[in-house]
């Protein structure tokens, strides 16, 4: 029933978890398949060079064409997914766990813990995530796992802020106090009435952060801080193509399209999750 018909003078953007989210979900499942079972998606070897087949344009045999050493770019993209997506997943898990713990503690206990977190979050916001990740990589050294840790730590602040906000938002709700009135203890109350509500938005943010972590991981890899050259990391793949831009447009373009597609799909998924949260206030 529409109680205030006149207030919504704009076309109502009512959310239906429609086609885009369904497509994104399919694509996302497909990506997980890529990351864990690359062999299912291509029979070609990503590291096998073929000097007779250098810099070939995309064809039925080489879907994405070949690189300067004659390696199949599609196979390299598929195997690169394993490296890049695993790194992304590690990064998101680190950020989610550390952020939720920090934010949850600050929100629930308040006081000094909250003030310390406030400064920490402010600092983490003050340093752009990419620069912070670069600093961490400087200290840790180069490699796929190192990138993953760096990206994860540099996005802790976002999760900590949300977790704190959610805990604060739900703990002040009337039904939480109502549970206190009917004799529910404070820890039970936190677990039964606060955390289940906070979990949804945090998971939705994790899906959104997955998208930006893919970008961050590939950017660091592009800058040359990831795995060393024969490895087919997505960022590195594109960086290698830089030298052949005139002769082979596909070398940078197609792997980049794959990255963009992955980011877009996970972003849609995260948005969809977030809106589903919004439907249950």
């Amino acid at each position: 029933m529409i109680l205030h018909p006149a207030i919504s003078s704009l076309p109502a953007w009512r959310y239906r978890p429609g086609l885009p989210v369904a497509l994104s979900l399919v694509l996302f499942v497909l990506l997980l398949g890529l990351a864990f079972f690359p062999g299912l998606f291509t029979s070609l070897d990503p590291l096998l060079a073929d000097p007779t087949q250098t810099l070939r344009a995309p064809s039925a045999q080489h879907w994405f064409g070949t690189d300067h050493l004659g390696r199949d770019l599609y196979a390299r993209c598929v195997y690169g997914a394993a490296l890049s997506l695993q790194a992304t997943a590690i990064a998101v898990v680190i950020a989610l766990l550390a952020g939720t713990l920090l934010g949850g503690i600050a929100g629930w206990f308040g006081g000094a813990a909250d003030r310390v977190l406030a400064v920490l979050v402010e600092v983490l916001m003050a340093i752009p995530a990419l620069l912070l990740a670069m600093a961490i990589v400087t200290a840790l050294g180069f490699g796929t796992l190192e990138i993953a840790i760096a990206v994860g730590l540099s996005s802790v602040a976002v999760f900590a802020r949300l977790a704190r906000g959610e805990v604060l938002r739900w703990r002040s709700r009337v039904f939480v106090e109502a549970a206190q009135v009917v004799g529910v203890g404070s820890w039970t109350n936190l677990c039964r009435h606060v955390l289940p509500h906070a979990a949804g938005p945090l998971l939705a943010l994790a899906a959104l952060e997955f998208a930006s972590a893919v970008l961050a991981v590939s950017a660091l890899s592009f800058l040359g801080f990831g795995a060393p050259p024969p490895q087919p990391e997505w960022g590195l793949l594109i960086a290698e193509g830089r030298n052949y831009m005139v002769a082979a447009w596909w070398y940078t373009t197609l792997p980049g399209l794959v990255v963009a597609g992955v980011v877009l799909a996970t972003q849609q998924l995260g948005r969809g999750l977030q809106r589903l949260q919004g439907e249950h206030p």
Partner: protein
Amino acid sequence: MSTPLVRIRQFGVEYPGAAQAAVQGLDLDIAAGEIVCLVGESGSGKSTTAAALAGLLPEAAQQHGQLWFKGQALDSLDERAWRQRRGRLVGFVPQDPGTSLDPVKTIGAQVVEAMTVHGMPLAQARPRALELLRDVGLKAPETLLARYPHQLSGGMCQRVLIAIALANDPPLLIADEPTSALDVSVQRQILDRLQQLVRERGSSLLLITHDLAVALDRADRILVMRHGRLLESGTPAQLWHAPAHPYTRQLLQASPLARLQQRRVAPALSRELPLLQVTSLNRRFDKRGAAAVDGVSFSLQRGTTTSLVGESGSGKSTTARIILALERASSGSVRFDGLEVLGAGRRQLHGYRRRVQLVYQNPYAALDPRQDLLAIVSEPLRAFGIGQRRDHRARVLALLERVGLPGDLLHRRPAQLSGGQRQRVAIARALAAEPELLVLDEPLSALDAPVQAQVLDLLQRLQEKLGLTYLFISHDLATVRGISDQVLVMSQGRLVDQGPTEEVFGRPGSDYTRRLLEDMPGRLVPEAEVQTRAVNL
């Protein structure tokens, strides 16, 4: 009254996707200079009707039927044509004054804008803005011009909005629940002023309200709507003496006006010790500010109902929260059946909580939206360790039955229930703890009028059956008269009046209570009529 100012014929509004039309088959005339009240509960279509007349329906709305204004068809106007007519043809006073003014523009700019958008030169609009602000009863309008909305009270904002609505002297003024967000005393002043201004200018007024008492006081004609249909229309006297539609009769019975006529049969005076004894309670939130609760003392006898009445900010809620041990007191004492509640230990408090329960104002906010009724109502059983775990289901079913809910709702969630059902669930949860004292924090104010009567009825029956003691918190004196044995009136943290109900109503001990009684809507219906009416009920 040859041709009416507004003529609506077979008018309907539908929203795509909604099961039911918001308005259907509406016929309505408003004569020049007439005050018409549109009464109905939320979702009755009264606000949609108002929005259609002001040209403010959302784009998604599909309207059909005829809408004539001074002989001109409104339903065929496009957005551009409407823009020139809004404010000139129809002035609109919105519902919530606190959020209906642009927060970043000055009052002066917003009043002036109402005239300049319709082509009045600035030099003319400025002095007229001053005059308008004076007309709506604002003092020192010169200084108000440079103020921002957040610096004004809700009542002042509503006066500014009335000034804006009147700025172009529209022949019709629509006021959509203009006072529902305001305190009772402010409500009366605003409505008085609105009525006076409309009469002076000879404009018509369409007043939308959920409160039949307000309509009876002010209208030349009252229209009752429900589920998008017009049920009945007539003068206040006709409606009062001979309501044709059963729903109107129900509304009349449910209105605080009718409740005003109920008298409580005083229970036998008990000589026992009081169940709850509050002595010189004080609460200060900060050292410099005034006390939120200032020297409050009273006692509750077992099995009686005591009403704590006051406007928002009077300290009534804080007092209740201190009694419930949800808020600390600065000093004073709260004794419950021999136990000192303030400063009680954790175990003692846990035991105390079981005996004193609370029902909140807004049942939707007070129920966890993720839980079903079984989980919600059994929560006190689990927390206080009442009964065996496997018996909880049976106990919950019995509790639901006791509050008049069918057992097949057991696995529903709050969002799937109506407002009245939710409040019943909240009452069932409170009863699950088997309390002796039930604190009811405005338990009716979030409900529609007929539902209010049902919940009130349920509370009375439960009290008779279970011997409960009630502390009933309310801002509305009319509601409490029929149900209370004792009335406490709070203002600015102090108890200004307290005593047996009839004593407080008959011989109010303070000016404040007297004013509250005068500000009650429905006071204009003659006392004699009220009494004959009460007999008929």
